């Protein structure tokens, strides 16, 4: 177990290092460095900036150093939560991200729970009642869920709720609650606003998992042990839940890491379209404004989140399923 853990940890550290390198390359690939952008901003306000000033600032910030020195400094800072300074926000990058990260995490977790909570029962139902009306209805919904781009679903839901329910979906709280103290009503308001982003983000993943669950249960239902259990007089419900479903859950649960990657991957666009105060709009606006220190930091954090999440889910699986061999 310890060998397995240390191997996985070493592998995770290596992946994180690679990811940090990729993020740094993206930061560096943007045209113009921080000193130039700063000078352009100053010049726009009427201050007189000479080339010598820019050069002096470069030396002060270490921008004249070779790339690996700069990378080392960036990485060292990143490990302390210091990702540099966002020129668009005029604040430290770490601070801006820290404000919005909790919401992104909340939505991601809620989406994961939603996906499994919906897909497992629906998958079981579709497998047991194969070719029934419900099975067809769910599989049509699944096909649609896979085919509709996230942002379009978000737009349609926005439009519907605006048009027919006169409810503001954009943002996280109804206007009255925004600055109110935390109360039960405010939590309810928050949950009501979370439904749309979670549904939008989770639809295609749910569709995918439902299909996988249906196929897995169908496979198990045809096995001999089910027949013998039925022959020994186990009630259908008991039999179903105790054996085939438990067996079928394993392959579904083992893709948790991929699901997490998928959710984190899709979250920025959904957050952007729904105008949530999370990292989504932050990331896309940073890209559109070429505020690369912020964008690079976010890419690094998104990747780190999924890598750590995958690691944790792998560990959980090993604990859950004793058949997984520790090599």
């Amino acid at each position, binding site marked *: 177990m310890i060998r397995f853990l240390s191997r996985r940890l070493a592998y995770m550290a290596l992946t994180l290092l690679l990811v940090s390198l990729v993020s740094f390359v993206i930061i560096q690939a943007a045209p113009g460095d921080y000193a130039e952008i700063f000078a352009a901003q100053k010049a726009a306000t009427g201050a007189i900036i000479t080339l010598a000033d820019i050069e002096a600032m470069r030396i002060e910030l270490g921008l004249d150093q070779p790339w690996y020195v700069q990378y080392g400094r960036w990485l060292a800072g990143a490990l302390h939560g210091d990702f540099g300074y966002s020129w668009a926000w005029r604040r430290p990058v770490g601070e801006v991200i820290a404000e919005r990260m909790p919401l992104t995490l909340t939505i991601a977790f809620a989406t994961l729970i939603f996906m499994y909570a919906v897909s497992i029962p629906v998958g079981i139902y579709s497998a047991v009642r194969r070719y029934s009306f419900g099975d067809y209805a769910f599989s049509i919904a699944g096909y649609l869920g896979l*085919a509709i781009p996230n942002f379009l679903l978000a737009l349609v839901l926005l439009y519907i709720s605006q048009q027919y329910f006169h409810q503001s979906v954009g943002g996280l709280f109804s206007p009255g609650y925004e600055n109110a103290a935390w109360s039960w009503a405010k939590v309810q308001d928050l949950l009501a606003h979370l439904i749309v982003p979670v549904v939008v983000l989770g639809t295609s993943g749910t569709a995918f998992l439902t299909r996988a669950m249906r196929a897995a249960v169908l496979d198990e239902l045809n096995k001999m042990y089910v027949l013998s259990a039925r022959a020994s007089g186990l009630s259908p419900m008991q039999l179903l839940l105790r054996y085939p479903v438990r067996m079928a859950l394993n392959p579904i649960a083992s893709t948790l890491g991929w699901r997490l990657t998928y959710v984190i991957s899709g979250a920025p666009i959904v957050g952007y379209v729904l105008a949530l105060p999370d990292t989504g709009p932050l990331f896309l606006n940073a890209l559109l404004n070429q505020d690369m220190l912020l964008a690079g930091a976010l890419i690094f954090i998104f*990747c780190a989140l*999924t890598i750590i999440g995958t690691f944790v889910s792998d560990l959980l699986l090993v604990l859950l399923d004793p058949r997984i061999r520790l090599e």
Partner: protein
Amino acid sequence: MSVIDVPAATTKSRRKIRRPDLASQWQLMWWKFKRHRLALFGIVVLGLFLVMALFAEAIGIGPPGQRDTAYVAGPPMLPQLIDAEGKFHLRPFVYGVKPVRDKVSLRMTYQVDTAQIWELGLFVKGAPYRLFGVVPGDIHLFGTDKGFIHLFGTDFTGLDIYTRSVHATRASLGVAVVGVLVSFILGAAIGGAAGYFGGLLDDLVMRIIEFIRSIPTLPLWLALAALLPRDWSPLATYLAITVILSLLGWTWLARTVRSKLLATRQEDFVLAARLSGCSDTRIITRHLLPSFLSYLIVDTSVAFPEILLAETSLSFLGLGLREPVESWGVLLFAAQSIRSIDQAPWLMIPGAFVIVAVLAFNFVGDGLRDAADPYSRS
């Protein structure tokens, strides 16, 4: 479906009777594929899209860049058969519209004018165009003689959404086809090398694939797309975006190629080929590839919708293709703000094209997956 003895069959019907024992593998696959109704339906839909892409000028109503100042941000005009007095018309028609200024918002809106009836016709003469840039023509699939028809309405600058959506089929499917082709070549080459040579190279490739799979790729592609210089020509951006998107799809294919190669390279027929003096390239291309080509086709069909959706999302955000290139995502860019879809919800119609195309690709992919292994019974 297996009919082995057919003594009474006439020569004509004998051709229709299936002989699984004599059929080639491709024939078996086709039979199995045909049983998948949705997949056949998907093929038909994709065929229609192909026709749309090839003959966009004739299927659209006018030039895609033509602004109709008489109908700006106008709602879709639905063809009707029964008029306001309940009279049936054999020829479909649309009612005329007249501009009215909204007394509250002071915006121009359009009111249906039931006094005016604009009849529609098939294959009407309209604006001249050059098909494929060469063949001159002026016949359009449908249109009106008097007045105008905007089937899906117009956007805030008076551009016809139907015509633009039809033309956008080209860029959207073009990006998908080229992107899939590139990722197919990448996947086959990298996976092939890893599987055939094994050893260190195999380890390295597998680690890279695992790495790419373990990180959220969409933010990464967004960043790469955002880094493309803004002053590149639309064509250069188009090509660059295609390449970026094709980096999405290759990992699945590479894995399939690798695992199939690993499974088959120990087979006797490979050994026989090697003993007869075949080169590595010949063994791979003549003996190994054909033995699992069907699985590759399945994986390729899965990559299509993925790339199509990614392109649409990128363009929708303003980071992918840009005007004057038209793709469905570029058209949806206009529907970005809640205010614009509140005023003109029909701006979302190009999204329906995306959904239908992805559905069709998924259906075909499902059919192909079933057919890829024609010997399995299910």
